[in-house]
């Protein structure tokens, strides 16, 4: 499955990239699975994605809890808690 991954704020800065297009392993089915997959990609990824639950996820531009299915996602975004307003 090919999907666009987006990164914002300090997640973007620490990873050194704003977006990438990847083929996710077929066995990943939920947001929690994708977070686990991210955490094992590199030392930097481990630091960013195991900041115990701090990184938030949006699937196709909608806030997504860990249990949300990502099988048909076209765009998955990773970011810290929002601080606008």
């Amino acid at each position, binding site marked *: 499955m090919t999907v666009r991954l987006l990164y914002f704020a300090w997640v973007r800065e620490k990873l050194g990239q704003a977006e990438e297009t990847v083929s996710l392993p077929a066995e990943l089915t939920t947001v929690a699975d994708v977070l686990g997959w991210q955490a094992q990609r590199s030392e930097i990824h481990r630091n960013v994605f195991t900041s115990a639950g701090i990184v938030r996820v949006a699937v196709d531009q909608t806030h997504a809890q860990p249990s949300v299915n990502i099988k048909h996602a076209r765009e998955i975004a990773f970011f*810290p808690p929002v*601080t606008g307003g």
Partner: protein
Amino acid sequence: MAIRVQTEDFDIGREIAALTAGRIDIGAVVTFTGLVRGASPGKSLATHSLATMTLEHYPGMTEAELERVEAAALERWPLQASLIVHRVGTLAPGDNIVLVVTASLHRQAAFEAAEFLMDYLKTQAPFWKKEAATDGTGDWVDARASDDQAIARWR
């Protein structure tokens, strides 16, 4: 009902005038404006002066989220009109960040809807603030627990 994300400043008087012009069914208009303060929360100006604040957002999701927030307000209160304007880019102390306007027949609906829109915007809309201090330091602003508490009262 309208939402806008923009780098330019907004003119509060002009925005209100545009919402209310020619209408005689509006009894109450509430506006909230958020501005950049010269020091971080909890820090004194003397020791930690802010040079700039940069706002990043998630284009596409921001608009979708603000529209969802506005629709949720409309479900709860009889609003005659509403507006959300949020700036992005690099701002200086004293600059406007965000404007929320609500218009209704009576003041209670207008006040409550404006507070609701701000509470939702603070906790749901994908904006992130990075501060740069005059001493060269700077970092991303942390989310505030008080904002999560504020949103909880609407559930």
